[in-house]
């Protein structure tokens, strides 16, 4: 019983990290209709940014998060204006190819600059934990969970209640009407992609604090984010929280009852089920 409770707690906390991972990807996908295959590489860049700020200037990884977010926002904004903007009206296949290309370039630049060494952001409190009723709870993961939840809700409020947020939603829903009302799609798209990259950067900083960093972590993270975005749905940022939690809990329970090698079978099984039963995601609007 205690084991089950411990595994459930781990699953929920893992779900928080998953949700944060997918948040930026879902935002860009929902608004620009681009499945950003370089999302994982941006997470990787964020992880390195926080890593160097921590090891070179000894800035606490949680304090570096806003800095990393700003750095990645600029990177994302530049990528959108400099590259993606030219193909934004192109077929989905083109944008997939371009973002894949960006992923490859970022990955290999990272190996050139940072080498393939494994690194970890390891402040003294990285392994801290506390116990409630015999269940061990890692402190940093709780913070990650709180940040994921906070950012998701902030994103939701931002989209609902600010002028730029409404512009972003309007562009996603009806571009022609949005333009007629004075929304500049070029600016909105670059802002959105920048925001997506900033969220990836925050994820990277936290990922490096709980896991490990090397130039090649991006691919699997993109795949996972993709699955979470589909499970949760793209209409609402809260969807990724649901998607992340479902995936985290399903994976953990599968590892407990069926064995660790079945984790991916289970997570992609859930993905298939969602695609068949609720194609627009668990929180998506049904057609």
């Amino acid at each position, binding site marked *: 019983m*205690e*084991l089950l409770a*411990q*595994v459930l707690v*781990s699953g929920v906390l*893992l779900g928080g990290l998953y949700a944060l991972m997918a948040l930026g990807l879902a935002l860009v996908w929902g608004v620009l209709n681009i499945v950003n295959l370089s999302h994982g590489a941006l997470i990787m860049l964020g992880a390195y940014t926080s890593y160097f700020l921590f090891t070179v200037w000894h800035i606490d990884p949680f304090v570096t998060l806003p800095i990393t977010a700003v750095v990645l926002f600029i990177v994302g904004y530049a990528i959108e204006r400099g590259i993606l903007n030219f193909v934004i009206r192109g077929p989905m296949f083109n944008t997939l190819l371009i973002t894949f290309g960006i992923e490859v370039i970022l990955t*290999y630049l990272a*190996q050139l600059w940072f*080498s*393939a*060494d*494994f*690194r*970890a952001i*390891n402040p003294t409190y*990285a*392994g*801290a*934990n506390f*116990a409630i009723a015999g269940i*061990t709870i*890692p*402190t*940093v*993961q709780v913070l990650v969970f709180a940040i994921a939840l906070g950012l998701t809700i902030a994103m939701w409020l931002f989209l609902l209640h600010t002028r730029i947020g409404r512009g972003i939603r309007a562009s996603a829903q009806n571009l022609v009407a949005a333009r007629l009302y004075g929304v500049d799609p070029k600016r909105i798209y670059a802002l959105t992609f920048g925001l997506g990259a900033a969220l990836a950067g925050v994820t990277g900083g936290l990922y490096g604090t*709980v*896991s*490990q960093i*090397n130039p*090649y972590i991006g691919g*699997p993270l993109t795949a996972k984010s993709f699955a979470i975005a589909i499970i949760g749905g793209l209409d609402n940022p809260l969807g990724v929280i649901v998607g992340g939690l479902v995936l985290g809990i399903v*994976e*953990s329970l599968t*590892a*407990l009852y069926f*064995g*660790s*090698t079945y*984790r*991916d079978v289970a997570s992609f099984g859930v993905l298939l089920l969602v695609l068949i039963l609720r194609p627009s995601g668990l929180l998506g609007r049904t057609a």
Partner: protein
Amino acid sequence: MMLRFLFFVAALAASAVAGAQTVTFGASVQLTGPVANTGRYYKDAYDFAIEKINAAGGVKVGSTQQKIALKLLDNQSDVNLSVRQYSQLLSQDKVNFLLGPFASNFVLADSSIAEKSSVPMVQGGGASDEIYTRGYKYIFGTLPAASDYFGSTIDALAKLNPAPKTVALLYADDSFDVSVAKGTRELLKKAGLTTVLDERYSTNASDFSVLLSRIKSGNADVVLVAGHETEVLNFIRQAKSLGVSPKLYSFTVGVPSADFRQALGKDANGASGMTAWLPSTSLKDQWFGDAEAFAKAWKAKFGYDPDYHAAAGVAAVEAFVNAIQNAGSTDPQKVRDALAKVSFDSVYGHIAFNDKGQISLPQIMIQIQDDKVVPIFAGKDFINKLVYPLPPWDKR
């Protein structure tokens, strides 16, 4: 026109002469991709060994002294690409002999190319028993059998106080690690230890919280993990954050590698592992002097410490040179037969292959203590004191 033709002939003749004076090795190694940080050991080992041997005059083939050349390709950590590259090295680049890639699953696939073309491959990157049980004649390896990786560790367990009783065995689902697990299971049975958890996980798994919780609830005294460096990093970090501290834990990878210790910092202390090689002065070598001098020269040249991958890679080159000199020829068949009979001392240890083509070397149990790799147990005796049982995380 005539002049140009003469130049052409002259160039041809020159290249023919140059060709006659070099022995070319071909290799496809992981220079980029997820295992690039281990792949680099092989590139650097091949380069360094060939540079040293050439500086000493090269390799003696019959009555001529020849230089060694290396054609090295980057397989991007992709098995399928490495197979194509080894075919290309033989068919297009016409290399004389093959040096291996890193990792058992790569060697498994790539050695088929060597076997099909009847060109010998010597590799220091794959230890899986599977490589040597296919009856291949052209594959030789300088890493000892995967099934015995935990051999010295399990021998040491019997002499510990308090004696550990229960063991958890975790392994990734690839050729090398499955091979390690298979061998370890038998060793554990012989040692009379109870296995409370025996579980396979997916390669590149990043979340070990469930396995760690099961280790805790199963009260495993000892945890043995056969996996990859990223997994071991995650395992140790999550063990700390979940407060799981078995009396001893040991890993097939990472512990001897410099970047592993650097990534974990203090948290690496206490982790055990094994290595078939330590840079000691007792290992004499024709080209490098001894292993300690080799390790120093390596650090000075490449800026990081060598581990057994590096030494095993150098040994692969030296095995070829010895075999070519003994055969007095670069005929693949003759060199293959000479490889089967080589027996010499190297920076890595004594090199001789059994009838399957694999080297036999004992594993030395090691542990990270105060950020350094300390040899713990070899043969039948402790060399240094093992930190055992490991203190709980909050007391470290």
